[in-house]
């Protein structure tokens, strides 16, 4: 064997080793964190039970249903539409692990875009996981990407015309919140959107809430984005929240911004569609070094400076905007929405027991409300 051939085999062996270790690291992103449903859970289903086209695909995800003894309204809650917006996902997990419904029905999908949880955004340096302390030890959760994993949906076209007819850039074809009302025979993300529309239709959801987060420099923040069919409900919710001291604003869903949950759920499924936004420092472009600590405590010097310069749409000081504050805000908004629905439509009462108290969550944190690891 010549010298250069020996070098080649050595380098190829080295490449195989790098592939092995890097591959193992990447594959840990496919692991799903444990969720321990409350004993009051009625039934756990999958999105594929509503749309078999998702069966055995990475887009399939758990659907938790809590049904009360008494008839009432039906509420759908989506977390993890964008897996890099942890407050939405953690709020959904908190509800699954604590809730008891005595009247009406609550359906929760914590990992709406399951595929997006299986990778991280390239060149962002985001941590793969973050941990929350519970009385029985830490529990980890995935920090994913805004978009579906390109391993599961490829290629991105240059231009994407979504199912509602809006023209967007190609990568948006992997954004679940641009893919509604979905396509039965479309790309994976469109199929997930189609499955969620089936959940709304089959379960006859009276109110559907999509939990999100956005960068503090983004104007639609600490906001309730509402479809015009839920304008009255959004207004009542706003008043309730303001009376509780929660500073929040209303944003009407623009009729010409198509493919988003708050638009297409209302237009196609005729449900009351609402999207909730909180301010997430780790999501923003002005942040310093990304880390699990930043996700949890939301403290960042650059954002403090940006706030002093008046560039942010939310107050920001040295305390940051912690995950517990953001989750607390989502919980308070959900509670106000349910109470508003009951106020406007007494027949659509949904009685939520054991809902973590938003003020308590702010005080003691999220951990005490999470089931310790088993």
């Amino acid at each position: 064997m010549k010298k250069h051939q020996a070098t080649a085999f050595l380098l190829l062996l080295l490449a195989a080793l790098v592939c092995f270790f890097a591959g193992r690291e990447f594959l840990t992103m496919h692991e799903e964190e444990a969720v321990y449903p409350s004993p009051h859970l009625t039934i756990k289903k999958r999105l594929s039970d509503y749309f078999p086209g998702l069966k055995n695909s990475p887009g399939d995800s758990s659907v938790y249903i809590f049904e009360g003894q008494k008839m009432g309204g039906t509420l759908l809650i989506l977390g993890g539409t964008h897996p890099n917006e942890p407050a939405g996902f953690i709020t959904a997990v908190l509800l699954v692990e604590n809730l008891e419904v005595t009247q009406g029905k609550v359906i929760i999908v914590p990992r709406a875009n399951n595929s997006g949880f299986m990778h991280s955004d390239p060149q962002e340096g985001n941590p793969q996981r973050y941990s929350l302390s519970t009385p029985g030890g830490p529990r980890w959760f995935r920090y994913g990407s805004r978009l579906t994993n390109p391993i599961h949906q490829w290629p991105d076209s240059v231009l994407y015309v979504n199912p509602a007819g809006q023209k967007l850039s190609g990568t948006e074809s992997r954004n679940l919140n641009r893919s509604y009302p979905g396509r039965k025979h479309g790309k994976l993300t469109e199929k997930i959107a189609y499955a969620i529309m089936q959940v709304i239709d089959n379960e006859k959801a009276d109110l559907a809430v999509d939990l999100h987060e956005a960068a503090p420099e983004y104007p639609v923040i600490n906001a309730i984005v509402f479809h015009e069919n839920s304008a009255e409900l959004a207004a009542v919710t706003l008043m309730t929240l303001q009376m509780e001291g929660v500073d929040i604003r209303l944003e009407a869903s623009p009729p010409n911004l198509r493919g988003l949950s708050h638009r297409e759920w209302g237009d196609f499924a005729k449900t009351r569609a609402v999207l909730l936004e909180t301010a997430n420092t780790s999501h923003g472009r002005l942040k310093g070094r990304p880390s699990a600590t930043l996700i949890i405590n939301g403290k960042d010097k650059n954002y403090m400076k940006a706030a002093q310069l008046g560039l942010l749409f939310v107050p920001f000081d040295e305390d940051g905007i912690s995950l517990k504050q953001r989750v607390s805000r989502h919980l308070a908004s959900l509670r106000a929405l349910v109470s508003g629905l009951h106020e406007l439509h007494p027949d659509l009462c949904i009685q939520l027991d054991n809902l973590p108290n938003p003020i308590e969550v702010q005080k003691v944190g999220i951990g005490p409300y999470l089931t310790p690891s088993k």
Partner: protein
Amino acid sequence: MIQIIYHFLVLYLTFHLIWFVIREKKFWNQLSGVIVLIMFLLRLLLIK
């Protein structure tokens, strides 16, 4: 179908790269080829 074509394409290019690394006499060119090969292998195995 497009996925299968894509796989064959990546597989073909992977073999070409391996063949290039074996035949190439300059060390730095071999190393460059191997670095590219890592991406191709991870993509071929549908890991990244």
